[in-house]
């Protein structure tokens, strides 16, 4: 048996993870050599590593298929999310240059942990076995706990890290208990295997599998910050370094949703009617809690955190649809959301200044006069978050609610649309601040845009507009991949 293990094709399909892990380790080894010359070297090398992983992911896709005896499944779905988390990683590093320099905290560990986290997410999205899902999830989570508390002298970062860690481990335990019950009732934890047992004759006690699905829903619900498991999100996003908040809202979240989609639409497809009400309720609750709480926030990072809860709710609407169209819509939405949210956080990171002093919505007043480019880019992201046509956010919402209607989820669609209308208010408030007010203390003190930040704003803006003007390119691929899913 060991003879046919790790064949050449296995290794090729595992290429992105190998590149990321090796480069992450290399960064730390090179640390003493690079440190004196230029503190930007770590960032450059990490971007190189992620670009390599991107190439690796595409090469793996061209040679796709199962790897390591069915532990991994490199299909369109895995590649879509793999590329998404790698791009999220690159877009996190771009604003990190200036951020770390300002805090005097450039180290190789920051970048290495970021690369490891992305590697964990690549594993999660390709995993076809619950034990791989679990290990990938833990690699991604443990690196994220540390990154959230990376600025150790900062009390807020400490607290964010602690809360993220405690609630994350709590959620992991629930997820694992679900895995244990699945193992007990089906005798396997391979996703395809579970599907076969559940849809075959002599299916095990549904109560048992139902409890398992519910426990896994709790665990994954924490990871994607869906209500009622969202309590950690505002604190962590507020306390973590801003580029990391951006990363958390895109990478780990997209990967957790990928796992969510894969588990619930492959393994648990036969008991779909059972979990649908659960996801329905969670979707509605997430949208409502997220949007109404965001209305009351004065801290911008906290506001974006609540908005991220609301957006998780929209993706859950797509999941509730339980159709391939719904899965494709969720994939498209997560891609659009990654671009617009990382972009929005990059603007926040740019403005916040040393020690992240300026985080209030009032601090954005008059940004348009001082820095028209930053204000214009921020406007694109905010309009996309609202869901205005010509942006990726619009088509994301459009496809999600279309999929929901096709599955006859009329009430959920109506309530979701009402929710988006509420959301428009708090995003527009920032636009008004930027364009209609005189510059305040924060905008007077804002530093010129560094090249890294300029890229960090322009690339997501192009991505957002691209998805809004040519949505079909991405949607076609997502549609094809969601068919492959079963």
């Amino acid at each position, binding site marked *: 048996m060991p003879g046919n293990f790790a064949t050449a094709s296995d290794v090729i399909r595992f290429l992105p993870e190998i590149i990321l892990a090796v480069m992450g380790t290399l960064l730390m080894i090179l640390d003493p050599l690079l440190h004196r010359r230029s503190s930007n070297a770590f960032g450059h090398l990490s971007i190189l590593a992620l670009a390599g992983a991107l190439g690796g992911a595409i090469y793996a896709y061209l040679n796709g298929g199962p790897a390591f005896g069915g532990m991994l499944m490199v299909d369109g779905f895995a590649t879509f999310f793999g590329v998404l988390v790698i791009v999220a990683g690159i877009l996190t590093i771009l604003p990190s240059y200036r951020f770390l320099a300002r805090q*005097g905290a450039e180290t190789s560990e920051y970048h290495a942990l970021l690369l490891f986290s992305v590697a964990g997410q690549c594993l999660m999205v390709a995993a076809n076995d619950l034990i791989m899902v679990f290990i990938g999830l833990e690699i991604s989570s443990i690196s994220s706990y540390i990154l959230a508390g990376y600025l150790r002298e900062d009390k807020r970062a400490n607290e964010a890290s602690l809360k993220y860690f405690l609630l994350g481990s709590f959620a992991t335990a629930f997820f694992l208990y679900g895995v244990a019950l699945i193992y007990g009732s089906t005798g396997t934890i391979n996703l395809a295997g579970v599907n076969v047992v559940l849809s075959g004759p002599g299916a095990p006690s549904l109560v048992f599998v139902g409890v398992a699905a519910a426990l896994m829903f709790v665990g994954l619900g924490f990871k994607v910050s869906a209500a009622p498991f969202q309590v950690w999100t505002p604190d962590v996003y507020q306390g973590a370094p801003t580029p990391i908040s951006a990363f958390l809202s895109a990478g780990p979240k997209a990967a957790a949703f990928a796992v969510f989609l894969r588990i619930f639409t492959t393994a648990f497809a036969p008991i779909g009617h059972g979990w649908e009400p659960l996801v329905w309720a969670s979707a509605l609750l997430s949208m409502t809690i997220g949007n109404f709480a965001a209305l009351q926030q004065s801290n911008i990072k906290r506001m974006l955190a609540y908005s991220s809860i609301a957006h998780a709710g929209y993706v859950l609407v797509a999941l509730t649809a339980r159709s391939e169209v719904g899965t494709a819509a969720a994939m498209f939405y997560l891609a659009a959301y990654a671009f617009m949210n990382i972009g929005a956080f990059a603007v926040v990171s740019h403005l916040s200044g040393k020690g992240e002093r300026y985080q209030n919505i009032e601090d954005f007043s008059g940004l348009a006069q001082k820095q028209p480019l930053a204000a214009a880019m921020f406007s694109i992201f905010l309009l996309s978050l609202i869901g205005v046509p010509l942006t990726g956010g619009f088509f994301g919402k459009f496809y999600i609610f279309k999929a929901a209607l096709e599955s006859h989820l009329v009430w959920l669609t109506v309530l979701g649309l009402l929710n988006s209308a509420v959301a428009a208010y708090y995003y527009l408030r920032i636009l008004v601040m930027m364009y209609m007010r005189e510059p305040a203390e924060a905008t007077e003190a804002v530093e010129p845009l560094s090249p890294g930040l300029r890229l960090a704003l322009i690339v997501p803006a192009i991505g957002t507009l691209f998805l809004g003007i040519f949505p079909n390119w991405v949607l076609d691929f997502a549609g094809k991949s969601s068919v492959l899913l079963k």
Partner: protein
Amino acid sequence: MLIDTVLFYIFAALVLGGGILTITRRNAVHSAMWLIVSLLGVAGLYLQQQAEFLFAVQIVLYVGGIMVLFLFVIMLVNLDQAARERQFNRHWFVALVAVAAVGAEIGYFIYRGRTGFHIAELGAPIAAPHALGNTEMLADTLFSEYLLPFEIASLLLLVAVVGAVVMAKKRIQ
């Protein structure tokens, strides 16, 4: 047969007693000690279910590694003051209801589920060619079917090492 039942009761008492005392003791050191008792009880149950390897790992890794780490940290932080503070959450009543619900629910489902088990009959012990012990069978499976998770676990441990160092080293710069 009887001796098995008696042993189960003894181990179960250790597990539950240890668990209850872990979450109720004021002093964190006492909590840790009772957690060790509970972990040893679990180890005993592993032995009863023919998981000899895990029995050893539970004691070496959990009790000898993780719990010692806990005790070190408890010694490093000054908890004299903490022991005098209020130990329980203000919303303990809500939490109590929630926990009772979780416990009752899971217990009920398992009770109901025992008849609906897919493979419920208890047959012979883990069917194995008797030449192979538990540890050998584990090794065979680990290094063939589960080779990838095993290798990837090294990345996880690397992350943990780097993370702990980042958190604990002196000053960034």
